[in-house]
């Protein structure tokens, strides 16, 4: 995976999927433009301001709550290149693997708007705004293969699951 570069949007602990995309937006007619609604209740205007490549940085338990796959999909559609958090909720984690949203488990010193560089192959996150570097663990083997194949359905298509 290539080096990613983007501006940080900072959040706290326990960002739930209702915050990422509210339930009232979960209708099929919105599936191709879920990005318009991200964080609309808690960070109005973010959906319009987010730039391709931007990175979300959060605390513990990012993506807790509902199983809605709309959550990682909406972030991807908005151009978010990865989410960096101290930990992730389980269903959000699995959903992200299948839709191709990169998640990085890492506790990093980042402020809103900092420019970040992520080197997935090296397991390194660099805060270009304050010069600090952080290491993160790569996905375990099974998950890395799942992600590099393009998700579970690709494995099924290839007869590998």
């Amino acid at each position, binding site marked *: 995976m290539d080096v990613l570069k983007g501006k940080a949007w900072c959040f706290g602990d326990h960002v739930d999927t209702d915050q990422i995309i509210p339930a009232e937006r979960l*209708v099929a007619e919105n599936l191709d433009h879920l990005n318009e609604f991200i964080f609309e209740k808690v960070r109005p205007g973010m959906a319009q301001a987010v730039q391709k490549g931007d990175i979300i940085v959060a605390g513990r338990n990012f993506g807790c709550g*509902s199983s809605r796959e709309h959550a990682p999909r909406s972030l991807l559609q908005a151009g978010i290149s990865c989410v960096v958090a101290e930990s992730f909720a389980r269903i959000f984690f699995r959903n992200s693997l299948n839709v191709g949203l990169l998640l990085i488990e890492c506790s990093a010193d980042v402020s809103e708007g900092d420019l970040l560089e992520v080197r997935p192959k090296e397991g390194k996150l660099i805060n270009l705004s304050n010069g600090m570097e952080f290491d993160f663990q790569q996905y375990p083997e099974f998950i890395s293969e799942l992600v590099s194949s393009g998700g579970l359905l690709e494995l099924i298509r290839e007869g590998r699951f």
Partner: protein
Amino acid sequence: MDRGKTIAEKILSAKSGVDAYSGQIVKANVDYVMVNDVTGPIAFREFEGLSMEPQKDKIVLIPDHYVPNKDVASAEQAKEMREFARRWQIANYFEVGRSGVCHQLMIDEGFAAPGRLIVGADSHTCTYGGLGAFSTGVGSTEAAAVFATGRLWFKVPESIKVELTGSFRKGVGGKDLAIRMITDIGVDGATYKAIEFSGEGLASISVSDRLTVANMAIEAGGKAGIFPCDELTEEYIKDRVRGKYERYYADEDAEYCQMLHYDLGEIEPMVAFPHLPENGRPVREADVAIDQAWLGSCTNGRIEDLRIAAEVIKGRKVHPNVRFIVVPASMTVYRQALDEGLISLFIEAGAFVSGPTCGACLGGHMGILAAGERCVASTNRNFIGRMGHKDSEVYLAGPAVVAASAVAGRIITPDNLEEI
């Protein structure tokens, strides 16, 4: 490996054919995969893209979130599910009027049973652990994968053992235990883990209460919340269950990552303050005026919950400043409540009673909150804006407290209602 197994390890071993322990990744045969009207459409699209035949008998389709259709967009989406069911001739599609909140219906219709491995594209799929199943929430793409193959991968979870002793005092139930436990371990206290319940206290916990507790396992981040099957379970499912099922019990030398103990007699009526289920406090410490009381959902919308609420509200009136909304979790529950006279009793008291839907629990319809409004709800989440406006507030409690609060106009236990 020469050590005993937890219930989660046993079920995942049996379903994968591998002698599996926590930490291992297994591919397991899933008994049922359920999707609802919100998560279904993505699953259908992803499945159709595979050009494969579906595992028809394993698929259960239940529209519940935005039905009866709340608007045109919801109608289109519910129609998509109906058409998918027709196209692939999936028998287990449950139409409005013969249906209910998906998890209650999975129980009513006998899909949920001890020892089964069930996944659902809804986070509260963990509910069936109340019957001794290993059941967990997945995303739509994973549901589509199960539609196609009947299998899914699982990382066998570590388990937290919760030892229960004693029995609940009157007016205390599963919801209070769940809020107490989530408050103790936090909303990520069980992330990636199963919570296994054990101990002599189990015998005094009704199956309905067990389902409530298992349902809330996800609110601690849990992958599953599992109660071992016993005589109460067998009695509860005997007229509903489809097919055969296996019972699995933990070995005495099973390994757990954490041990918790609760004396049920010491659990107090609890209420979780906004905006996280871990913000539990004893109800006696609450001083909160409410605009709405909401009874229903997969957490506390069963007949047992309605009976508890009815007993509290019998002969009393809903407070003039409060809307009390009662939503039985399925048509079966609705019918039972009607036969037992509970519906009339709620209406007499001044409540609004509707047919089953997830409705306002997730901010869908039928009881949405305006800015600044407060609701005490028998539901499972009190996140920011969960039931409506971002500046509204949801307080989670059990059915007795919800009903008492509807009368008092503020959050209160039934005991304190006597003094009003």
